[in-house]
């Protein structure tokens, strides 16, 4: 018996990864955003495989719809030139590696909690939900970090304030680098 769901899942995974690569290798910001929308649709489909249609719908409407428009507006309305738009910034290599390793550790601890017999990704052996298990047991017992959520909230708030500060300190008198409105501006 062929497991059609598995085939569909693998196809969806390949599609999502390919679109993710498309985000990185696109030559214009709007194209990147387009690939990002396609990636997010692929990510949303994963919820369908987990039988949670509600999350699928929310992921589609909030991320592929609302957030995508926000990104497109931001990409179109901020000034950048494609010449200094570096895809492989050497300053970013170390942070990216660190972030990647951290993400792997997080995903690893999450996957380790899934009981192998049932394959249900939403409840653990104790019957708790996965996130409860994750935050209350693992981090508290192993690392002594009982306040991981408040800590993360404070971190995000600091990041938000920092980005606002960065955005406000932009020199608004400098109009020499006008944003390019179209993919290729032609003079006739």
């Amino acid at each position, binding site marked *: 018996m062929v497991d059609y769901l598995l085939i569909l899942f693998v196809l969806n995974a390949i599609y999502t990864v390919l679109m993710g690569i498309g985000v990185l290798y696109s030559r*214009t910001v*709007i*194209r990147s*955003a*387009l690939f990002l*929308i396609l990636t997010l*649709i692929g990510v949303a489909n994963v919820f369908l495989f987990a039988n949670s*249609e*509600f999350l*699928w*719908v*929310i992921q*589609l*409407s909030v991320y*592929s*719809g*609302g957030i*995508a*428009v926000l990104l*497109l*507006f931001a990409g*179109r309305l901020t000034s950048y030139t494609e010449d200094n738009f570096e895809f492989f910034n050497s300053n970013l290599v170390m942070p990216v590696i660190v972030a990647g390793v951290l993400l792997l550790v997080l995903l690893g601890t999450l996957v380790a909690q899934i009981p192998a017999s049932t394959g249900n990704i939403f409840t653990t052996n104790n019957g708790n939900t996965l996130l409860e298990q994750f935050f209350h047991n693992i981090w508290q017992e192993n690392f002594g970090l009982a306040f991981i959520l408040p800590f993360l909230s404070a971190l995000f708030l600091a990041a938000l304030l920092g980005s606002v500060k960065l955005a406000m300190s932009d020199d608004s008198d400098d109009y020499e680098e006008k944003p390019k*409105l*179209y*993919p*290729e501006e*032609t003079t006739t």
Partner: protein
Amino acid sequence: MASPVNPFLSGTFNILGIQITIPDVVAIALGTFLLANYIMINQLIMPYVERKVMARQQGRRGPVYVGWRGILQIPADLLKLVLKEDTMPKTADSLGFFMAIFFIGVSSIMAFVPLPFANGVLGADLTIGVLYVFAIFSIVPPAMFIGGWASNSKYALIGGFRAAGQLLAYEIPMFISVLGVIAIVNSFSLNDIALYQMHAGWFLFSGFGIGGLIAAFVFYIAGLAETERVPFDIPEAEAELVMGPRTEFSGWRYALIMMTEYVHLTVNSLLFIFLFFGGFDFWPFGNAIYNFNGGVIFTWPTWLYELRSNLWIQFITVTVKAYFFIYVATTFRTAFPRMRIDQLLSFGWKQLLLASIFGSFIMIWSTGVLG
């Protein structure tokens, strides 16, 4: 296996003494074929109805030459557009140009899946019915924006900006105005919502006679803005922006975009019918008249209930109601001037949003769900 036509085809027929059983696969294929054709053929009739009605309201005659009273004008237009040369601006972004059409076309057809045309006659009775339609439609604003940007034309780009801003501003009041209905029925399924209204009366009159009215008004206005119909057709304001984000699309692409506009209008009209106008029920007052404590004051006769339960009558009711709201949208198009973009956005965010919260709250309050 569920099939859209199961209520029509009971599965087994007795023709001249021979038992014929219809396999599920055939029933599903037949049902899908019938529903899809019903939807697509209506998309050819609706523009004709709109053009005729608009012409009459403006003292003209509308299409008259092709076919009887010009009834074949729209198929002829479609044929012409499909046969036209497929052109794309030289400097356009080819991927964005294609993907925008793809998104807009696919999303509009997908939106028909949870809409029942009679009790149980629908593509799929999803548990997330209403939410599904909203999610599918929320893909359209970024697609419009990308289409406008990829065309490499200033009109298209400005139109894309306006379209994305407008669609986003009206999606939220539209969704909040539905919350009351969802909370009362306790289900997202449009079939369940229609059945509830069949039992308890249309939601238009719920909420002490005012809450449902406010929510329905907000939903209809937001729906008109979502479909970019005339008082809200700012993204494609002809006098300013040629055709907005659609300016550079020609031939079959233009035909597809025009079709999706009418599909959107149909889906919005059908959603409005299912959420507030009783769905496939033509009788607005439910099975009985109830007092405030839920006790029955007066029950309507049984023959009326049997008439309302007939699938063919339900099917005809949905079609007639859909055309009625096409007529209303056309009248709006003739009667009202276009709004300005700032008026439109402030109307959406400041007035409609508040009204939708208000309407939904009264609806929920009136049914005692809040305790």
